[in-house]
């Protein structure tokens, strides 16, 4: 799916009094992307996976060429060979991480620590790469979030996660002792980590979004976001409330079916029970993803983009939960029924809905913009790392 965060970060208009509206249009077609996807998959198979970054570059180019901001499409300048290096780095990192997990809990913990230590830097590098290789009207976008801020934004989720994983690896060898001796420090560490991770999740999400939306630049425009933590907490509570719905619906259906099966005999009843339970769990799972994820995604997109503006630009996102819910449900059903053949159609439809929900008010004429003079500054090493490895983690 197209990275909604990276795509519509551009737009302008002339008169300061009456802003011009820069409309976002997405013209991609599911059937055309289906064919690109099919050929990409074949090439990935033939090259035993090495073609992946090239397939990704082709996919981004297709989505960009079809994303029009005020009638000019975005362009992608990423060099697939550089993306290939980033791809190898990520494969290596994830490979070492998952192999370490198979051998000992200490090795797994050390690997996790290393991953936590480098991940914020990689995250920033990939934002720099994606934005730096995106242009509109010939002007390159930039991402100017600092390395320090990337780590600060990550801290509230990474530190509890480290406590959680560390606690778990300490508990591992002495479970019997722990059961006998009651509450050990390791278990305390584990519980505190789990608790903080849950409690801090909305705060972390706020920090991640703030970091991203404070870093987008094009020409002389620097995006700034007003995103209140309280609102994200409120949204999280509402999302959890929405999560109860599918559970209740599925639970009611299962209870109803069991009630109706009272009259049946032993083995028939057991068989029916298994079937109903299976269907109930499947339905609950489907509804969970069709209701909860779209709700959270739609509201979060609106919250973050409606708070984002730059000197001359103001963003508006009016993504309706009802539309995204209907689309997600349809995408899921068709993708499952067609054994994933529908997936490219789903990707295009979702990108269209999410992109076209955004409009941009512009108080200047973007034709007057000129590229910012960016010589090497303090963060040049980060830029080089991002560019050298062609890191692009967003999908």
């Amino acid at each position: 799916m197209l990275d909604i965060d990276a795509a519509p970060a551009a737009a302008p208009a002339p008169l300061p009094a009456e802003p011009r509206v820069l409309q976002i249009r997405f013209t991609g077609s599911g059937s055309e992307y289906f064919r690109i996807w099919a050929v990409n998959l074949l090439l990935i198979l033939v090259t035993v996976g090495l073609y992946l970054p090239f397939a990704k570059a082709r996919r981004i180019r297709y989505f960009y060429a079809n994303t029009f901001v005020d009638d000019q499409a975005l362009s992608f300048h990423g060099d697939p060979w550089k993306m290939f290096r980033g791809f190898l780095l990520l494969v290596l990192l994830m490979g070492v991480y998952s192999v370490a997990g198979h051998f000992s809990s200490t090795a797994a913990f050390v690997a996790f620590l290393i991953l936590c230590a480098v991940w914020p830097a990689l995250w920033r590098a990939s934002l720099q790469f994606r934005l730096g290789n995106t242009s509109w009207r010939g002007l390159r976008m930039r991402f100017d979030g600092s390395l320090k801020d990337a780590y600060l934004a990550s801290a509230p989720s990474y530190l509890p996660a480290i406590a959680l994983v560390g606690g778990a690896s300490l508990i591992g060898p002495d479970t019997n002792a722990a059961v006998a001796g009651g509450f050990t420090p390791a278990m305390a560490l584990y519980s505190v980590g789990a608790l903080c991770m849950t409690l801090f999740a909305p705060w972390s999400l706020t920090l991640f979004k703030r970091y991203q939306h404070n870093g987008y630049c094009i020409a002389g425009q620097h995006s700034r976001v007003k995103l209140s933590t309280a609102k994200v907490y409120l949204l999280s509570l509402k999302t959890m409330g929405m999560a109860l719905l599918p559970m209740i619906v599925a639970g009611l259906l299962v209870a109803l079916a069991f009630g109706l099966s009272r009259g049946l005999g032993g083995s028939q009843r057991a068989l029916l029970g298994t079937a109903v339970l299976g269907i109930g769990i499947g339905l609950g799972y489907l509804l969970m993803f069709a209701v909860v994820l779209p709700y959270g995604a739609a509201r979060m997109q609106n919250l973050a983009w409606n708070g984002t503006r730059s000197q001359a630009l103001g963003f508006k996102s009016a993504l309706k939960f009802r539309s995204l819910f209907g689309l997600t449900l349809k995408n899921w059903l068709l993708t499952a029924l067609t054994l994933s053949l529908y997936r490219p159609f789903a990707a295009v439809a979702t990108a269209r809905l999410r992109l076209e929900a955004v409009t941009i008010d512009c108080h200047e004429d973007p034709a007057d913009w000129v590229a910012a003079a960016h010589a090497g500054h303090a963060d040049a090493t980060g830029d080089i790392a991002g560019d050298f490895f062609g890191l692009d983690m967003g999908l």
Partner: protein
Amino acid sequence: MAGEPRLGADWFDGRSARARPVEVWLDGQTLHFGDQSAPLSGVGWPERQRHGQRQVLLPGDGLLSFADAAAFDDWARASGRSDSAIVRWQQSWRLALLSLVLLVAGLAAGYRWGLPWAVDTAVDALPQGVEVSLGEHLLDGLDDEWLKPSRLGAAQQQAWQARWSAVLDRARRQGGVDVPERFEIHFRDGGKALGPNAFALPGGDIVITDALLELLADEPDAVMTVLAHELGHVQHRHGLRMVLRAGAVSVVASVIVGDFSTLLAAAPAVLASNAYSRDNERQADLYGRSLARAGGVDTSRMAVFFERLAKKHASVGDHPLAIAISTHPADVERVAFFNQR
């Protein structure tokens, strides 16, 4: 230059966002636009598509933007630019569907021949130390979650170990069956969850549950055959193969449906493991039968084991989920296999 086909474009120079209308034409390996030019080799040429804007990316940051995609495609063709093979495949329904067919055929062939080959190669290349530590790690995990120390007395455990060693000694003397270098029998209480069970981990650790030994307390030959079967898994390194296979299949599945759903991506790995494990069971049965017979064990006693197992499962049949897993249509086949002379 007058003979070259020309087309209007908006030129953005990469410094200013103002569009400058220019005329574009190709002259050999050089792209001309207005009074500028660039060698074709340094230019990012757009792929032909039905939708979307055509942009030619210039060296540096500039680009040429073409409002009319169809006109661009005509002009490019008239200027002697031909589509790459990939574009031709992408733009043809027939070739795109052919790629899907080839993809499915390729995946099937990879699954049938490529994966076993890759796993065999990896298994041969991996030092045994790796396999052993993997197995120990798995056993530690099982000890935490599922297994308790055995309730069997030390004397009983020793009696089983002695009997097993005697079978192995006799089989070794008889010859004909290779016995793996490293293996170890562990006695554990698997509780209700595991029931009567025995399984082999990578690296040669074999776990046998108290419930199984209770079930077959009066049928030592059946116990020996079960252990010989598990030793077959060790001999063929099935545990490590399963881990590698499941890993490879889930990686492939995640490329195809991965960013869509982790559940959908996990399903093929589970299905593949089940399909492979049936082959593994047959292989281990074959090895187990040869080894047990060489060790002087009456393998036909396995019939009693399958019979008692079936009875035990039938008694818990009230549980709705039990129906799905308790039927063993292969039992008859396996009883016949162990009876066969």
